[in-house]
């Protein structure tokens, strides 16, 4: 790739679901260190874009590059191992395990699970998991089964699981949906500080425009599989088409 700053680039990706355009010849780059927000109405292709970047959906045309190396349609596990982690719109957790156990498994996954008979519950992993738990403020539920947590905390645990992989690029699918309006900014503050500290690039799908305005360095606006606006939050939110397509619909 010619652009030195680009961490992730997609070129001409196209995906159709039974005639519905989820991605229509999209070309763009995500720059190192940026917090990029993706906004758009339901069905505009936001989650599909994350699914393409992580290998869950194979584009019918086009290619995805991570630091110039093609990763198009590699299985999710290979893409994860190359440094792209994601969180999910609906939390994806190991529901019969505690928050700490979930995190320790994620840490072990980062180090490789094929490592003999040393127990998962070992001092180093426990310390690192507890550090993450303290970072996002889940101390009071560290020993609770994730399946029994309320939605907002599950969401947070889900994001932390991705964070534990120490990714270079973190994709967040609506990190604040299901979280109460009061906690929303606290959580985003913690999260964004943690990401900045770890020099992690982030791409997040978001419905709350106030969250976007506060935390995004750049906003991509999706409409029926295309990016119709791309720029600083203030510039984008002033755009007539964006107001019509997204802000009107939300």
């Amino acid at each position, binding site marked *: 790739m010619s652009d030195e700053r680009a961490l992730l680039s997609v070129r001409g990706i196209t995906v159709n679901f039974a005639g519905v355009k989820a991605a229509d010849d999209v070309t763009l780059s995500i720059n190192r260190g940026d917090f990029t927000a993706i906004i758009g109405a339901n069905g505009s292709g936001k989650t599909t874009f994350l699914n393409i970047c992580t290998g869950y959906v194979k584009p019918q045309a086009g290619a995805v590059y991570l630091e110039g190396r093609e990763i198009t349609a590699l299985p999710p596990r290979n893409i994860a191992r190359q440094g792209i982690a994601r969180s999910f719109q609906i939390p*994806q957790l*190991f529901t019969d395990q505690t928050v700490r156990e979930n995190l320790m498994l994620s840490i072990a996954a980062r180090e490789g699970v094929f490592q003999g008979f040393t127990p998962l519950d070992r001092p180093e992993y426990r310390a690192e998991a507890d550090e993450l738990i303290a970072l996002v403020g889940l101390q009071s539920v560290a020993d609770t089964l994730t399946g029994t947590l309320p939605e907002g905390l599950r969401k947070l645990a889900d994001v932390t699981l991705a964070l534990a*992989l120490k990714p270079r690029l973190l994709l967040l699918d609506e990190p604040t949906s299901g979280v109460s309006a009061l906690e929303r900014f606290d959580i985003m503050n913690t999260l964004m500080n943690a990401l900045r500290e770890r020099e992690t690039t982030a791409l997040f799908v978001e419905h709350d425009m106030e969250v976007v305005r506060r935390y995004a360095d750049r906003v991509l606006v999706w409409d029926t599989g295309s990016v119709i606006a791309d720029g600083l939050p203030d510039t984008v939110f002033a755009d007539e088409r964006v107001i019509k397509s997204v802000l009107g619909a939300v």
Partner: protein
Amino acid sequence: MRPATLYLLLAGGVLAMAALPILLPWKQFVMTVAMAKGFAALGVALLLRAGMISIGHALFLALGAYAAAFMSRGAGITDLGLLILGSVAISTVCGALVGAYMVRYRAIFFAMLNLAVSMVVFSLLAKLYRVTGGTDGMRVPVPTIFGMEYDKSQFDAILYYVALVLIVAVGFLVHRYLKSPLGHALAAVHSNEVRLEYLGVSAWRVLLVAYTVSAALAGLGGVLTAVAVGHVLPEYAYWTESGHLVLTAVLGGIGGVAGPFLGSIFLEFVHSFAVGYADDAWNMINGIALLLVIFFLPQGLYGLIARRRAAKSVMERDEDK
């Protein structure tokens, strides 16, 4: 239960088993067989942890048993230790080969494909008369132990304690495996395979290891059964035997290592009482017991019974194309 209490109970159980040949000598033989089958049931229980049900695992029990028969008859290997090592090695290799295909599949495909392969092997064992002795099976001579020859009853007494020591040693290793990251990843295949893959872990490789280990365990059960009974039959691979293993695993619970052995010993006791009255109905009793455990005692099966709410809501809630 606190760990200390648990260890005390386990130690008590092992001691009670060690004393059994002295207290109830006529039960020694059935208990050897029960312990042997316990290994195979432990193998089935391992896969159950990942939510995968093999209804053909008697295949590997039979492989271990026939491997022992071939080694002692064809290759002239008579030492018990070598027979065990050889049979386990053979079933491990077969487990890895068969497993590489099987662990691509989940749920009913996994169950039925295992059943299909076991039925193929059963019919080959029964048909290839010149190689396997057909439906008559093959006799397995009494093995030597470190070059010493024993008569059958002496050998049986030694074999009982060999099996008991193996339970402790192998049980400890399997316990450590389940506690390791790989063991946790195995359970994670059941609770959320998609997330596991997104953590960069290959569910296929995690399952292949588990399948291979489970085949090795079943093979170990097979060689112990073969030398205890002194005879191998195609029926070892028959699906009713696999059903028995599934019941044993479910009955003992899939949480710990001791469960399948307890289940096996309990069932063998029941069987030895029932054999006089209801031999024709033994599968029926197994089936009813299986249903009773699932209906009334599902605690031992952990998340296996609980409805997969989380997974379902994933499909329902996402409307973003």
